[in-house]
């Protein structure tokens, strides 16, 4: 399409301005500043689109009104734009009308930005564009379909916003996803730790095992230490004995005694004792002899000693009898004195007993041997009984007679009738009973005591009974009994009286018989005078007693005499024995009186005997010792010998000294042997403990004797100077063991902690929790990640879509632009290609390639090159659009350097081959350059809103630009 003519009736300063005969190629409109070039450009800009209601365009005086004749597809059309109405396009040769958009097939912005710009804008982004306008500009510059391309980033932007603002209704954001990821990371770390728990458990178990091993090692060290300590303590306890043992063994090995065990164990003791005994015995012997001799008055004490010892038994017997003898002597004297006194006493008794008797023997005239005392006693008793019975009977008779009389009197005096009370009968019976009892008692007494006593008893009883019972009878009297009652009692009493009288007769006969017996006895006894019955018995008893006393005196006298004789004999015998031994001053003529001297002699002899015996004992002891010494020597095979007896004491003592010395050596050897054995046993016993044997085991060697412990002990104790050294080392070992124990306790504590840890680690709670948290976060993350992935893939798809559209839209364009750009830059650059961000025109939209292929982004280019780039792109884009629309260029602000301006003009002129180009300029030199290059350009000038032209050359048009002269 191109404009043949244009009438601008009302548009800014252009009022009724007409521009006609425009060419289809380059039309240069010259005009000074403010001549209306820009207004004209704006008028053309809205020609096909209508005027917008905006303040950015020049106002109309009345209403916008532009009419243009155009050629469209080789047909003439008229386009009318009035006010703000849509332009009308009407065919000039017919009644046809088109929509202006059918001719101006691009949007106003594109047309404005692409076809109606300043020359300056050709080379750069127009100033004052907002972001959308810049994007639109990109579309404008890069061609058809670019709107779709531009939608793609918008879609991408909406996706990005959607991503950041809302994710699938979860209100998730990129930030939230990051947070979730952080959560996952955190819990993964926790899970890692939790899974490490197994290893931790294993490590803990291993640590426990290590601890166990450590504890075992420590225990072993403790055991070893304790064993060592035990060993050292054993060494400490036994070192001295052991060394003593070894010393003993050395002593024994160097001893002269070969077999000490062959000797008596107590040889030395025996020898010592014997020596001591012998010495004591020798000394005792000497002392005994000395003592004897000092006490002996004999001329030859030794002889006397022999005699003494020869009579030892008899002398000792004498000595034993001595006190007895002394007592016998004394007793004899006493007895003699007593016998004499008895004889005298008896004589006096005899004399006192019976007149006529002088001598004790007179009593022997009474023949007590013919009459027994019992007979006398019976006779006397019978006599007394008879007497007493008779006497009693007589009393009763008399009493009864008295009673009868009394009764008779009382009967006479008493009333006639009076019953007899039972009490009288009772009394009577009581008296009878008493009488019987008295009789029985008398019989018994006579039988067992004496007749006199029997009589006395009977009488006593009867009297007592009488006095007890008779008052009862009296009582009866007093009771006022009648005369009959009294008389009734009398016959009974008379009967009793008769009985008593009979009895009296019998008793008198009996008494006479008893008296006769008494007389017979007196006669048989030979008693010269009469005596009473009682006197007879007394006489008999006295005579019998005196006879007995006489006999006793006679016996005593006989005994005294016999004793004197015997004692005298004994003393004589003693005297005879003592005389050869000691001097005795004893008179056999007065043996008893001189007996003391004899007894003293016995004592003296015995004292000497004791001395002699001491001497003998000492001698025996001495000899016994010698025998024992000999026996000891013989028994033990000793080297010492005793001289043959008799032996001098000093010789024996000398030998004894040798013997003792020998015994000492033997004893030493025995002691050593014994001590050796004891020590050995003691040590063996001390070492025979299992623990000690274990401690000694390391020191054991093959071939050690059994038990091996001593040999091992010797090795173990080597190197220790003394027990202190052992104790020191023992202390060190104990300290070490103590340290190890402390360490062990510490390890045990650590083990306890580990065991606790192991228990804690055996659970999977942490793991489950971590896994749960991860799953939770993972579950939250997954939809976001899906959304995110969808978005990222969407972006990628969009990128591809974008690239494809860019390629489709901008590919041919940039190929076209590359040629122009190459020419414009004098082939400094050979190619243009899409840059990183096609929308960022000022910086990265394009890559300009040098011949070596090195690309440069827009912002890396020099200003001039960048301008050339944009010019090339615009021109290419303009060419690309079909059908071609008029291009209106304003060079008012152009800033090309001359060479570049020339090349730009050349490009514009080339464009004019295909497009109608309006070049608005205020630069005369530009016109010159156009003229220099263009052959078919038409020139106009515009002054104060009015066009003139066309001119075939530039000069006429240029004139308005030249400074006015004058």
């Amino acid at each position, binding site marked *: 399409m191109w404009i043949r003519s244009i009438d601008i009736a009302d548009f800014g300063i252009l009022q009724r301005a007409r521009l006609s005969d425009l060419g289809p190629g380059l039309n240069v409109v010259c005009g000074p500043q403010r001549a209306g070039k820009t207004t004209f450009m704006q008028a053309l800009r809205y020609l096909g689109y209508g005027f917008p209601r905006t303040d950015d365009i020049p106002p109309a005086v009345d209403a916008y009104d532009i009419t243009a004749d155009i050629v469209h597809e080789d047909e003439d059309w008229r386009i009318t734009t009035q006010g703000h109405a849509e332009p009308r396009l009407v065919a000039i040769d017919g009644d046809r009308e088109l929509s202006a958009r059918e001719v101006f097939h691009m949007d106003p912005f594109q047309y404005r930005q692409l076809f109606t710009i300043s020359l300056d804008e050709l080379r750069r982004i127009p100033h004052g564009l907002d972001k959308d306008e810049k994007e639109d500009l990109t579309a404008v510059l890069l061609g058809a379909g670019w*709107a*779709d391309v531009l*939608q793609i980033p918008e879609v991408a932007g909406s996706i990005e916003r959607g991503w950041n603002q809302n994710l699938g209704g*979860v209100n998730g954001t990129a930030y939230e996803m990051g947070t979730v990821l952080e959560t996952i990371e955190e819990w993964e770390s926790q899970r890692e730790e939790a*899974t490490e728990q197994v290893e931790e458990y294993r490590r803990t178990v291993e640590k426990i095992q290590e601890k166990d091993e450590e504890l075992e090692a420590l225990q072993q060290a403790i055991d070893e230490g304790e064993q060592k300590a035990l060993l050292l303590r054993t060494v400490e306890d036994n070192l001295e004995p052991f060394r003593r043992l070894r010393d003993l063994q050395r002593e024994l090995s160097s001893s002269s005694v070969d077999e000490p065990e062959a000797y008596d164990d107590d040889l030395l003791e025996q020898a010592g004792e014997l020596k001591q005994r012998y010495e004591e015995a020798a000394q005792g012997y000497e002392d005994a002899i000395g003592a004897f001799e000092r006490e002996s008055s004999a001329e030859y004490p030794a002889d006397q000693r022999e005699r003494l010892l020869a009579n030892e038994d008899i002398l000792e017997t004498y000595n034993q009898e001595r006190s007895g003898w002394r007592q016998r002597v004394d007793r004899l004297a006493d007895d003699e004195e007593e016998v004499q006194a008895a004889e005298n006493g008896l004589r006096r008794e005899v004399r006192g007993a019976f007149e006529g008797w002088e001598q004790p023997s007179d009593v022997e005239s009474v023949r007590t041997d013919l009459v027994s005392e019992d007979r006398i006693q019976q006779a006397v008793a019978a006599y007394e009984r008879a007497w007493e019975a008779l006497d009693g009977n007589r009393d009763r008779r008399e009493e009864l007679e008295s009673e009868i009389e009394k009764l008779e009197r009382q009967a006479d005096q008493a009333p006639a009738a009076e019953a007899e009370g039972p009490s009288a009968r009772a009394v009577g019976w009581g008296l009878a009973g008493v009488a019987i009892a008295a009789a029985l008692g008398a019989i018994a007494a006579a039988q067992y005591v004496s007749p006199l006593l029997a009589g006395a008893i009977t009488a006593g009883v009867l009297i007592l009974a009488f006095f007890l019972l008779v008052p009862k009878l009296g009582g009866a009297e007093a009771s006022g009994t009648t005369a009959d009652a009294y008389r009734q009692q009398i016959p009974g009493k008379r009967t009793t009286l008769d009985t008593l009288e009979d009895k009296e007769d019998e008793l008198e006969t009996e008494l006479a018989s008893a008296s006769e017996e008494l007389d017979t006895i007196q006669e048989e006894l030979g008693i010269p005078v009469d005596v009473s019955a009682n006197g007879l018995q007394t006489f008999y008893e006295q005579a019998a007693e005196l006879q007995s006393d006489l006999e006793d005196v006679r016996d005593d006298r006989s005994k005294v005499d016999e004793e004197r004789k015997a004692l005298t004999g004994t003393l004589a015998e003693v005297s005879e024995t003592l005389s050869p031994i000691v001097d005795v001053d004893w008179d056999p003529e007065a043996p008893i009186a001189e007996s003391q001297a004899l007894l003293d002699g016995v004592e003296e002899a015995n004292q000497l005997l004791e001395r002699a015996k001491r001497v003998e004992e000492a001698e025996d002891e001495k000899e016994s010792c010698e025998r024992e010494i000999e026996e000891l020597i013989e028994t033990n095979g000793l080297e010492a010998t005793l001289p043959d007896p008799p032996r001098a004491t000093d010789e024996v003592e000398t030998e004894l000294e040798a013997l003792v010395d020998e015994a000492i050596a033997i004893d030493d050897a025995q002691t050593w042997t014994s001590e050796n054995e004891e020590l050995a046993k003691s040590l063996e016993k001390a070492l025979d403990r299992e623990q000690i044997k274990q401690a000694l085991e390391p020191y054991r060697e093959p071939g050690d004797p059994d038990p091996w412990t001593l040999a091992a002990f010797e090795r173990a104790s080597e190197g220790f100077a003394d027990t202190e050294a052992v104790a020191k080392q023992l202390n060190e070992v104990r300290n070490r063991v103590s340290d190890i124990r402390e360490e062990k306790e510490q390890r045990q504590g650590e083990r306890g902690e580990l065991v606790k840890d192991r228990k804690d680690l055996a659970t999977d709670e942490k793991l489950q929790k971590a896994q749960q948290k991860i799953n939770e976060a993972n579950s939250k993350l997954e939809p976001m*990640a899906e959304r995110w992935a969808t978005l990222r*893939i969407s972006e990628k798809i969009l990128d591809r879509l974008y690239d494809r*559209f860019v390629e489709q839209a901008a590919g041919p364009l940039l190929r076209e632009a590359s040629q122009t750009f190459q020419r414009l830059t004098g082939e400094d650059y050979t190619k243009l290609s899409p840059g990183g961000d096609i929308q960022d025109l000022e910086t990265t939209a394009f890559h300009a390639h040098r011949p070596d292929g090195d690309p440069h982004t827009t912002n890396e280019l020099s200003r001039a090159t960048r301008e050339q780039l944009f010019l090339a792109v615009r021109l290419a884009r303009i060419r690309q659009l079909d059908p071609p629309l008029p291009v209106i260029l304003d060079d008012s602000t152009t800033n090309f350097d001359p060479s570049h301006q020339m090349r730009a003009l050349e490009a514009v002129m080339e464009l004019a081959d295909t497009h109608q180009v309006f070049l608005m300029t205020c630069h005369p030199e530009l016109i010159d350059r156009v003229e220099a290059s263009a052959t078919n350009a038409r020139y106009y000038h515009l002054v104060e809103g009015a066009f003139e032209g066309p001119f075939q050359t530039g000069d006429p048009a240029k004139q308005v630009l030249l400074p006015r002269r004058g």
Partner: protein
Amino acid sequence: MTVRFIHAADLHLGSPLQAVAQASPQIRSQLEQATYTALERIVDAAIEHEVDFLILAGDIYDRESRSVRANRFFIDQLGRLHEAGIPSYLIYGNHDPLGKHGEIVDLPSSTRVFDAQKVETVAYPTEQAPEARILGQSYRSATDSRKMYYHYAPPDASVPNIGILHTGMKPDANRYAPCSLADLQGKDNMHYWALGHVHQRRVWENGPYVAFPGIPQGRHANEPGVGGCLLVELGTGGQPDVKFVPTSPIVWRREPVPIEAQDGSPPPSNMDDLVERMRETASGLRDTDAETLLQMAPVDPVETDWRPDGFVLRWELTGRGPIHEVIEDTEEFIAGIEAEARAELGAGDPFVWTEAVRRHTAAPLPHLEQAKQEDEVVQQLLAIVEEIREDPQARSEFRETCQDIWYEPTDHEEQRADAFALTEERLDRFIDDAEEMLIDRILEQRSEHVDS
């Protein structure tokens, strides 16, 4: 001569199921206990079926979940077998390579651990009177690159020869005992390859039987289905009789929740509508009998009274529907529906626990087809998406751009907590989602431009 044994692998003991978070105490306990329960059931099965021995083909423990408790539990279970007179043969895999982590408690004497230095051959029950040979080798490191299979060389085929190997069965890999199926099937005298490492149950019947028993208990949404072990009756001739023994108390599932209109029902318009759709699915699951669940296995199941203790579901909201805008615009919508699902669907026997609800929804685009026909940008977008789906470079580029949080897994066991495995399937899913989103946005942008 035949032997009967249980072949299990990849116990990953102590690895809690990823749905543990927010679970009720009872369900949490079941989820935490699930891998232990699975092992217990393996041992129960061994005792019940009076097997000759048990084979464990590695990864007894999870590298990230090692615990003393797991160690002890494992030993206790082997102890049960020991008491029942059943020996165990086991190798350690990449998660528990021998030498790095030994058992903290001594194994029963009837348990034979194969060495990591070389392939060992053990005769069952005795060397003097063998009824089978078991060959095995443990890993010595987490990424054992030795071609172990090469050294599995039974001397003859007189007795059943069983090779225990923990392998990814990728011949070109530089770890996990690289080998190919053909490598294994080509080994002379071998009758059964007891493999571990791959968590899906797979078997190959041509030549010596090659089997991955799969994981006894899935631990996350990427290990769905019923886990278990294999009960094998093996002789020297013909194919072994292999049965699947389900052991997993918990069954993972991904369940789609379309947001479009379906079967005459209008599209869900609010959260309750969605939960209702989820409820219907959950109800259907509870009513699904064990036989149906076990039909998914490539091996026929043994006669069993197994039934799941619970399902753990990952719900995936899919499709285009009006509720998308609600989902998109409502803060915490997904969290809300998760909470709702857990509260509404959890109880029951078996329980149905919601692990997560994921959104793959888009707004309804009534003019989508027209746009695809007319809009150059949309056309270009679709063209580009189609190109890049098959373009390794582009896919690689996508992986690269996502690598901060999405890594390319070279093995299914590569699991990171702070990043996710970008499988091909998942990448396709992302590309689909991106495509939908871009179309939405472009068309939105278009309408905005038109409106302006």
